[in-house]
């Protein structure tokens, strides 16, 4: 009994450690139950967030565990859950695009519950078919290519990875542009209008299956690696030919 109480106390003091792995043990179906099982430990009761400011006593001197979710709306909740960014194993990890641990019904229930915390934007409905790929290229170059590379292959910023976009669905791209997940800036409609967003998505969709005329894309990052590869392969095969054709003289 004492051991059980100790475990419970540790679980309360170290909420990050208590973040249960989805699919293990808990069979929650409703939004509040799922939230309690997977989100509450970091995002607090009813999305109030846990930071050193909201909890000044600071359990074990933690600087914070999770941001408040009031007013983030269905848009942000759907993005973080459908991409598998959340739940995170540790709040200090960088969220990465993985297969979601939840099924569609669970995501929908959680999104509805998180959206009920406060007035926030709804899940967007992009129309990439209305966009122009060439305009999308120009906009993508202006706003996105600095981090994600012009071919949407992803890249790096100091301390983090800018993910490749080939796994992102049109809705997820539209959500990410407005949310600015993790270290990405967010882009309000005054900077990227919904029509421009359609073009950007059309461009990213095109870059998922680009027309690689040469066959091997070599990362699509330009002539330097292409030249390097052709020189290495070309020089190596020419050297091989020399060895076959030539003859070594004994001295």
């Amino acid at each position, binding site marked *: 009994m004492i051991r059980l109480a100790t475990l419970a106390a540790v679980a309360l003091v170290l909420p990050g450690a208590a973040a249960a792995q989805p699919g293990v043990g808990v069979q929650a179906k409703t939004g509040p139950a799922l939230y309690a099982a997977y989100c509450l430990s970091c995002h607090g009761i009813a999305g109030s967030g846990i*930071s*050193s400011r909201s909890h000044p006593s600071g359990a074990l001197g933690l*600087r*914070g*565990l*999770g*941001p408040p979710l009031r007013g983030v709306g269905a848009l942000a909740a759907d993005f973080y859950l459908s991409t598998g960014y959340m739940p995170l194993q540790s*709040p*200090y990890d960088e969220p990465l695009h993985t297969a979601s641990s939840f099924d569609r019904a669970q995501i929908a229930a959680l999104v509805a519950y998180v959206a009920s915390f406060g007035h926030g934007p709804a899940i967007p409905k992009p129309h990439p078919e209305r966009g122009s790929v060439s305009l999308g290229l120009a906009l993508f170059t202006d706003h996105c*290519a*600095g*981090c994600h590379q012009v071919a949407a292959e992803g*890249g*790096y*910023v*100091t*301390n*983090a990875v800018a993910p490749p976009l080939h796994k992102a669905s049109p809705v997820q791209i539209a959500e990410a542009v407005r949310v*600015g*997940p*993790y*270290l*990405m*800036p*967010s*882009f*309000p409609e*005054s*900077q990227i209008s919904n029509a421009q967003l359609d073009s950007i998505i059309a461009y990213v969709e095109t870059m998922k299956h680009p027309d690689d*005329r*040469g*066959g091997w894309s070599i990362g699509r990052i330009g002539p330097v690696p292409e030249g390097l590869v052709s020189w290495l392969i070309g020089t190596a095969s020419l050297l091989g*030919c020399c060895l*076959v*054709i030539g003859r070594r003289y004994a001295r």
Partner: protein
Amino acid sequence: MLLLGRGRRRPRLDERPRIVPAGAPDPGAEWLVLALLLGAALCAAGFIVVYAFHELAHQTQYLGLALGLSFAFVAAACVVVGRRLVVSEELEEDYPLPGHPQTQEELEQLVQESGSRFTRKRLLLSGAGAAGTAIGAALVVPALALGPFLDTGGLYETPWRRGVRLVDESGRPLLLDEIAAHTFYTAFPQGAGHEQFGAPLVVVRFAPSQLHLPAPRRGWAPGGVVAYSKICTHAGCAIALFRKPTFPAIEPGPALICPCHYSTFDPTSGGRVLFGPAGRPLPQLPLYVDPGGGLRAAGNFSGPVGPSWSGVRSRPPRNPA
């Protein structure tokens, strides 16, 4: 084509004495060469066939494969011809023996006497020296184009001065109320060229409590809006990356990052270098808000704009006359 090859033939020249030693005929090698050449012909024909099917998937790859194989067959045929059919022999050539001492002396005498017509040997030699030096200098001088060396004045000139309005790429003035946090803007001086070195700015907004600007720059950020030169102080690339934490308590702090070598600057503390090869902070532009709510420069940058050349680090920027 093979049948054509059976036509007229020149009479064989048997009566002359041979220079190249006779080798044994090798019908196997001949058949091999023929097979390789036929393979080359087949591949080349395949190229034409693939070329005809326009809507074939991966057509470019098949074209390359066909042509490449064809060339490879021809090359293989040439190798077989060279190694097994052309008669070859090995000859070893010795280094020439040193000449006769008397011949050497004659040669020295020849060289000396050949110059007997020169009367102004030194003058001509210095002329040759001048020509050589000038040609060498002509080859070296274009290296100056690698960077400003003699005249770095242009690096200090910026179009920014008190009262110049901040506009976006399309020339629309930036208003304080339209600048949102968590994103970044590129701004230019109204009425100046975008290409000018000191022109482009990166503008970001923070809550005033997030800013820790040095004391003399307290009034430079109206409403928490800060503006920095968009040109990196390391190698002059554009600062195209803005790192914005969603939950600043545990995520890396806000930063302006250059994608070329990842020089990382802190926009909340006056462009301090956080990481990377940049040697000095990003120049900050003081701002103020005009009565119409528009953002304007309150002066010139806090330091020289652009990459750091020797001597550029200390002098403050100025406006062109």
